[in-house]
């Protein structure tokens, strides 16, 4: 475990353990990520076939084969890099269209972002299919406050004469948006910088949260969210937990009963019971 003095955590993360560099090491270890040699952990999410693996390779210098088809990455790949003296562990999650857990790969990605609490979640987004890709991005932003959008495939967007206003998008989403062409390396220095800024707290995100304007859901949320906030004042994603409870998500109900949700705010990973399902789903085969 790293003992060097760390730059203080961002202000929005106010829990006592958050300033400790190893604050989430216990949960990450349960998820199969050994954090003893790393300062920050970065999760890489996104829709299938948006070039996630290419971004992963570009950042880590690894040469995993990238294929032009959805579902290329089935296992969770891990790698690392160093930037400005900090060591980053990067975890490539399976590509999914949603995090509403209808399949194994969605659950793997969801559980990692929720329970692993990566320091930064990079969401790789296909600039030519922004609308569909934002569906996932919005769901990720419901769960975590520390995110960077990698607006990939800008070369294809240019080929189709699409103009994507990344500043507008960044303002609307409340997180850094970096236009990239991962294949050629364009935009990667900016991406590294953005990840660094969010990880160290130099950039504080104010992520877009779903408005859920349909009256029935709004009403239900207004009744449920305050109760969750009362029980878990430091939980960064009360609305998302409420939505999952309303959807009858067994995994979240179980987490609530076992007190795992509490872990996500007041870190006591060693006392928490290991979540068996996470072990099972995240076993990495080499």
């Amino acid at each position, binding site marked *: 475990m790293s003992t060097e003095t760390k730059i203080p955590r961002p202000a929005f993360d106010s829990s006592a353990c958050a300033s400790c560099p190893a604050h989430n090491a216990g949960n990450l270890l349960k998820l199969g990520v050994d954090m003893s040699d790393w300062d920050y952990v970065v999760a890489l999410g996104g829709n*299938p*076939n948006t070039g996630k693996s290419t971004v992963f390779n570009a950042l880590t210098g690894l*040469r995993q*084969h*990238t*294929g*032009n*088809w*959805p*579902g290329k990455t*089935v*296992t969770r790949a891990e790698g690392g890099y160093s930037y400005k003296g900090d060591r980053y562990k990067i975890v490539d999650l399976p590509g999914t269209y949603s995090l*509403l857990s209808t*399949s*194994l*790969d969605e659950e793997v990605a969801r559980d990692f972002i929720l329970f692993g609490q990566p320091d930064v979640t990079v969401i790789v987004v296909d600039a030519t299919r*922004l*609308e*569909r890709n*934002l*569906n996932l991005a*919005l769901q990720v932003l419901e769960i975590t406050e520390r995110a960077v959008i990698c607006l990939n495939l800008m070369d*294809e967007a240019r080929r*189709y*004469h*699409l*103009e*994507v*206003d990344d500043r*507008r*998008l960044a303002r*609307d*989403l409340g997180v850094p948006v970096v236009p990239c062409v991962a*294949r050629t390396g364009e935009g990667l220095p900016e991406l590294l910088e953005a990840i660094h800024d969010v990880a160290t707290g130099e950039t504080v995100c104010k992520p*877009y949260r*779903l*408005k*859920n304007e*349909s009256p*029935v*859901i709004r*009403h*239900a949320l207004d*009744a*449920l969210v305050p*109760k969750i906030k*009362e*029980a878990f004042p430091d939980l960064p994603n009360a609305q998302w937990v*409420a*939505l999952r*409870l*309303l*959807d*009858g998500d067994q995994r979240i*109900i179980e987490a*609530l*009963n076992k*007190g795992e949700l*509490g872990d996500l705010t007041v870190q006591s990973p060693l006392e928490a019971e290991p979540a068996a399902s996470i072990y099972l789903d995240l076993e990495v*085969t080499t």
Partner: protein
Amino acid sequence: MTASTVLTADILQTADNLRWEVGPGFHEQLMENIYAEASQLADRAVTWPEEEPKFDLDRTIDRLVTSHIFGFPIMILLFALVFWITIVGANYPSQIIYDVLIGRIYPFLQQSAQTIGMPWWLSGLLIDGMYLATAWVVSVMLPPMAIFFPLFTLLEDFGYLPRVSFNLDNAFRKAGAHGKQSLSMMMGFGCNAAGIIATRVIDSPRERLIAIITNNFALCNGRWPTQILIATLFIGSLAPFYLAGLISALAVVSIAVLGVLLTFVVSWSLSRTMLKGEVSTFSLELPPYRPPQVLRTIGTSFVDRTLYVLWRAVVFAMPAGAVIWLISNITISGTSIAEYMINFLNPFGVLIGLNGIILVAYIVAIPANEIVIPTILMLTVLVTGINAGSGAGVMFEMNSLAETKTVLVAGGFTLLTAINLMLFSLIHNPCSTTIYTIYKETGSKRWATISALLPLAMGFIVTFMVAQLWRLFIGPG
């Protein structure tokens, strides 16, 4: 009860009550909200081009390659083209590597061993056994792989493979299997162990098992060289010279297509017997065509696939070379162990249109299909006693494909043997790595055993039938 458990219970209770209120359409409603908000945000950020481009190249290509009429012919033509380039292009570099590794380095090693006074059994084991087997594998396998894998990877990067899945999806559905099985099958054309891992994209355990068991019928890396070599020697040679490459390529394509057909037939049978159930639906996104980065693709596919497979072949070929040399040189009352095994298996081998040598080779080659052909050649030399100067179990110098064929023919190879060898190479048990992967993925010894024995039994049945029909209608073979 502590304060927090009270609060938790309250939250769950409230959620339960509200769930009644929001009703069963909640999930859809939520998705609709997310879509609406995503669409709003995207609209604000994206400016579309003034006018729609009149000609959409991607869509035009898609219409052609996924069309009902042209889809399959284009698919077969493209793969045939890939094999034709491989077969025609591999000859020359193969010859050069062969001349260096076996024509020059091998005699040099032998001389050196003599000079330093190495005992005959040690130099036999090391040079005649391990070195020669490895050299053979490298010279025969490296050139076709170095051509085939980059070509295949280029097709993959261009975005053609999902179109193949799209074409095959309907057939898989009719066979009672998951449409995504076409993706794991495609991976299987590279390596079955990788294909087995790729079945993780299939959620339903029933359909995943079908995909795992039938993945073996996707012709893997280790078996392509066997197919290409035998097709070139025995089938291409039937045609006039200028057509030989094309005919060989078509023969290999036929075997690959047969593998796909078998995948359907076995999936269909399994989904109606051992693995009954409903077909689940899924959506497959056809990615845009992307111009492949040719140089990088060739580079990564060379490292990822060619060198990987070659390394695996070498790792398995060295001990196999030692085993072959040992069973050829350890004699019991004047007859070597290899000959005992071959003689024992020969009647059964001949019955199914193969021979004892091929069966022994397949036993030796359980760890890796890559070494089947080298093993067959070494054992043939042993049994026929041609090229007696080199001694038992020793690979000898072969200057050309023609001489390879001479050896095989001397060992009793006929056209029937060649065809059945190609069939058996397609339909037999997976290599031990794949079997182990199946065991790891399913966590079940039973399914691993079934996945190994089912294709083996089918292989015996198919070759037996072909042999009987051949002898009935065409003549002794």
